[in-house]
């Protein structure tokens, strides 16, 4: 069975070296009905994806060991372009950085700081949440 076949619906992987950010993101995503796993860098995130491919990854850019962009490229090479949905959540807000992440296969991009409304809006655009009426 391929990793793609093992997608667990409503499973989210939060990847950030800040425990505070992971905690906040967990709270938002659990509020949207997702179960949440956490990783502190790109390497841990790749391992977590190999164990069980999540539906969506919230991905920081600047992390030790393996940064977000390196993870993004590795994940697309290993798992393909469809799954998981990858949303950058980062303080890197320069136009060129956003384009670089989109070119590498990110589906959406959240500029920190963010709140539940912004995150929910981005997930709705990806069809992962129902848009607010």
């Amino acid at each position, binding site marked *: 069975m391929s990793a793609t076949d093992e997608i667990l619906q409503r499973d989210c992987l939060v990847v950030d070296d800040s425990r505070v950010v992971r905690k906040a993101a967990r709270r938002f995503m659990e509020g949207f009905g997702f179960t949440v796993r956490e990783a502190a860098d790109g390497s841990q995130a790749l391992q977590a994806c190999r164990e069980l491919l999540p539906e969506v990854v919230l991905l920081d850019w600047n992390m030790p060991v393996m940064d977000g962009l390196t993870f993004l490229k590795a994940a697309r090479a290993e798992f393909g372009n469809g799954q998981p949905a990858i949303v950058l959540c980062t303080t890197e807000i320069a*136009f060129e950085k*956003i384009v670089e992440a989109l070119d590498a296969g990110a589906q959406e991009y959240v500029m920190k700081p963010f709140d539940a*409304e912004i995150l929910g809006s981005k997930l709705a655009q990806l069809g992962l949440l129902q848009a607010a009426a």
Partner: protein
Amino acid sequence: MTNDDFAEIAGVVRRRSGIVLTGDKAYLLETRLGPVLAKFGLASLGALGQRLKQRPDDVLERAVVEALTTHESSFFRDGKPFEHLARILPKLVSARAPGAALRIWSAACSTGQEPFSIAMLIADTLGPRPECRVEILATDISAEILTRARQGVFTQFEVQRGLPIRSLVKHFKQEGAKWRVSPELAAMVRFEERNLLNDLSAIGKFDAIFCRNVLIYFDAPTKTRVLDALSRRLMPEGVLYLGGAETVLGLTDRLVPVSGERGAYGISTQRAAA
């Protein structure tokens, strides 16, 4: 603030904007009129009520109305009307008389997210050189808010509410921590100060009108008056989009719901034939 003072302020707001302030909205006056009191050197809401009662003051009345007008907005707000417009755009374009422009009106445009969302939708749907001219008229009762809207500059927080990242990259330029709409997008939208209670015949007719979350602030007779005025600005095949909590039912027979499209209304066929 006495009941008379509240009635005086509410009366000015209703006369100038149609917005009905009931007694349970007194807190709005407390929270929003502070800067107006400071600007005009008034000690309290009571003093404001007295001033308004003593003599007409266009500048002060305008400031009061602007402070009490709600400017909540976001890009592609509520999604559905934009999806519907994208679907019917080809039909609207092909229905144009030769040389006529496709005209869309954002009737309470606030800080500009709605008209610029419409502009993005048209640019993405019809391409950079559509086969007909496109005019987007964006109006609001507030001159102050229109000044902001005309700038076409949005904060990082604003561009993340409802705007897909690819649309941001495609249609905006980054300026420090803010984002400015592209010159192409800005050129598609014309901003004008307009009060929906005034004569609107000079602005012509439209293929689509967005007037969302405006009627909820009016009483029933004012809703009817505004809906009738909007229906007269609509082309025979045009569509009026209202907010999710708004309806024409029981208010006018000039407009009927578009089947299966919540919040979308067209001209009644009986009316069109009349």
